[in-house]
């Protein structure tokens, strides 16, 4: 069956450290993958997109990697700040629609 999985346990890190979130998928061959941020009680907000032929994408303190062999994307936030605390969702494009993971909650301690 097709699955997209993110770690359901919250990631708790100290301010200034790098946060790394994982997105794994099975039985999909997505042309691209997106990452979104969602704050409590709000809709998701788009952060980054990475295409299947790209290994890595950066935007300010954010970095995304995409390994189509491992069927995995990693999302990194460097020099993390308490304001980065949120739930992060990955989404892959398949059959003309986005399929979302259930998200990983990140908590950055001051």
């Amino acid at each position, binding site marked *: 069956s097709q699955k997209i999985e993110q770690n359901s346990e919250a990631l708790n890190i100290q301010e200034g450290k790098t946060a790394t979130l994982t997105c794994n998928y099975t039985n999909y061959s997505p042309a691209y993958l997106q990452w979104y941020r969602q704050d409590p009680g*709000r809709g*998701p*907000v*788009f952060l980054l997109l990475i*295409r299947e032929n790209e290994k890595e994408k950066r935007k300010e303190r954010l970095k995304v990697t995409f390994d189509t062999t491992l069927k995995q994307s990693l999302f990194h936030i460097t020099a993390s700040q308490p304001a980065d605390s949120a739930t992060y*969702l990955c989404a892959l494009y398949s059959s003309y*629609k*986005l399929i979302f993971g*259930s998200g990983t909650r990140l908590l950055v301690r001051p």
Partner: protein
Amino acid sequence: DVKVTQSSRYLVKRTGEKVFLECVQDMDHENMFWYRQDPGLGLRLIYFSYDVKMKEKGDIPEGYSVSREKKERFSLILESASTNQTSMYLCASSSSRERYNEQFFGPGTRLTVL
């Protein structure tokens, strides 16, 4: 900035009631989507539309219908609300002009069915 608005932030309805959730976007996007979000299950696609008067079933359409009479407006209808439809409902829109099109989400409607 793209703006997607939803008619209510919070809604409480009784079992069996007909419920209308409205979504409006102001960026002339062709594509509009309705999701529901439940803890541990992520966002699940209910219905989507690529054009006016056009609709496609998503992954969980049972118990729902939609209407898109105008490009900017996409309505989700619960014909007879049930308690298992208590959830957060999110509307989104995207442009067909961009190949790798990001979705813009509204703030969500938290629906409680008693």
